[in-house]
């Protein structure tokens, strides 16, 4: 059982009132006058993204984001699951409430992985609540939030030299800061795809959503041929999409990353995750 997650009735019914106090209470720094509007925004977003209500994640899911970002166009965030929750969570949704396209990414665990430790870099367009919602294998939605002060990240110009960035498009990096994994020890892995990941600034007048420009839409990580992680991404992911995750298993296998952008460009790279070699 997932003991860290209280077995209580859904706090917010599918059509129920926005009972958001628990999540927002943990998100420090919100201007009091803005709190009701932000709660309403999240309530509306949840109705558009999920077909069920959510409940507070408690200790099962932790979202870490800087209270004030250094660079709104690349705000580092991390997501972690408790040891109890990790085997039960198959997907985590990351939502940046005030961004033009709020659903930043959905991370899905493959058969050969879990979502116990994820990291990403996102664009933040305005002071915002950021929400993470973990979906358990029995269909519950566990929610947590952070408040982040940053502005202009979606409309920020390409961070570096766009010409150089285009020439580098598709190049990938992989890093194992703590060395290769072992069957009993998950190793942190970071993968990155060089891509301008332009957000697009146009607004579709019907949907009120941004028309996407050029960005990585899916990224899959496979180890020894089995899927470890799949990230489905929106325009809120920063330039040069960079993700961290935990990899467990025998060292010496092939780690493969496949990415595809919205223009159907496909990129792939593979590395042998060394066993001392």
């Amino acid at each position, binding site marked *: 059982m997932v003991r860290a997650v209280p077995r209580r009735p859904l706090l917010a019914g599918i059509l129920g009132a926005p009972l958001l106090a628990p999540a927002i209470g943990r998100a420090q720094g919100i201007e009091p006058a803005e709190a009701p509007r932000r709660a309403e925004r999240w309530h509306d977003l949840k109705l558009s993204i999920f077909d069920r209500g959510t409940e507070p994640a408690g200790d099962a899911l932790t979202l*870490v984001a*800087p209270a004030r970002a*250094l*660079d709104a166009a*690349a705000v*580092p965030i*991390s997501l972690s699951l408790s040891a109890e929750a990790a085997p039960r969570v198959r997907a985590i949704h990351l939502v940046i409430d005030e961004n033009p396209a709020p659903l930043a990414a959905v991370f899905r665990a493959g058969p050969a992985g879990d979502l116990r430790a994820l*990291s990403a*870099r996102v664009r933040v367009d305005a002071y915002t609540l950021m929400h993470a919602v973990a979906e358990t294998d029995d269909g519950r939605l566990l929610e947590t939030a952070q408040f982040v002060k940053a502005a*202009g990240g979606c*409309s*920020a*110009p390409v*961070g*570096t*030299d766009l010409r150089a960035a285009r020439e*580098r498009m598709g*190049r990938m*990096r992989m*890093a194992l*800061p*703590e060395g290769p994994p072992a069957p009993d020890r998950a190793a*942190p892995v970071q993968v*990155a795809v*060089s891509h301008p990941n332009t957000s697009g600034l146009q607004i579709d007048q019907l949907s009120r959503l941004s028309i996407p420009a050029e960005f990585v839409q899916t990224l899959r990580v496979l180890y020894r041929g089995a899927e470890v992680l799949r990230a489905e991404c929106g325009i809120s992911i920063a*330039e*040069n999409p960079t993700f*961290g995750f935990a990899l467990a298993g025998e060292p010496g296998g092939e780690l493969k990353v496949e990415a595809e952008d919205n223009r159907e460009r496909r990129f792939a790279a593979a590395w042998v995750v060394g066993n001392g070699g």
Partner: protein
Amino acid sequence: MLAAAGPAIAATVQVAPGVYVLPGVHEDASPSNGNAIANVGFVVGGASVAVVDPGGSMAHGRRLRRAVEAVTPLPIRHLVLTHAHPDHVMGAAAFAELRPEVVGHARLPEALAQRREGYLRMIEREMGAEAAAGSDALPPTRLVEDRLDLDLGAGRALSIAAHGPAHTDADLSLFDPATATLWLSDLLFVERIPSLDGSLAGWLRELAALRERPAARAVPGHGPPAVPWPAGAAALTGYLEALRDGTRAAIASGVGIAEAPARVASAEASRWRLAEGYHGRNVSAAYRELEWE
């Protein structure tokens, strides 16, 4: 003469014959400083005047224009925008009616197109709507791809150089051969912590080349009106090298981009004014650049 013109104009410093700098203060934009935080100024030629960066606001630009008029009756024919940052360009509106030629880096129009509106909102937020009113950049009318000689008449010509991505991706520098003055604007920071908005590797490259250039003095974008050259580049070079080396080491040892700002080159940063507002951002920018080396 200067007394009649007021204290603002008395603050103008002639760093070499015909080369005037209106020094900025080491602060962030605020209602009280009118965003006059960068060194701006002008060069008086035989037939015309070139303004080098019109200032950070309409008020700053007007102050600079009065400073020119207090020194010479010659017309302001050229406005050189050394890069797109608001503390350097948003005073351009004060010169609009003079219809000057506006000189900028070949990449400046794109930089302004992308950032101008955001910068206008930013200075309004920081200075207050009243103080910021009327401030704006002017679109460049003459672009510099590589080099440009700007003739100010009677044998005085400024040699303008376009740089690769360094402080920003649209930096210009000027050299006045008559006085051997190198006007570097924000390619050179002194006292105030530099802000990295272009390329760290590029900035170090451009600085190395500039240091080889014989000059009597350089005009920094922030710092004293003029410093000896190349000695005046030593502190900046030291900081940028520490930023590069520390960030590379952080990347190599697996320190993440979230943790690096508190750990990289903190000692070097502490020697600079306003480090708390900019050093973390510099590390973050350096990290994103260097992880792709």
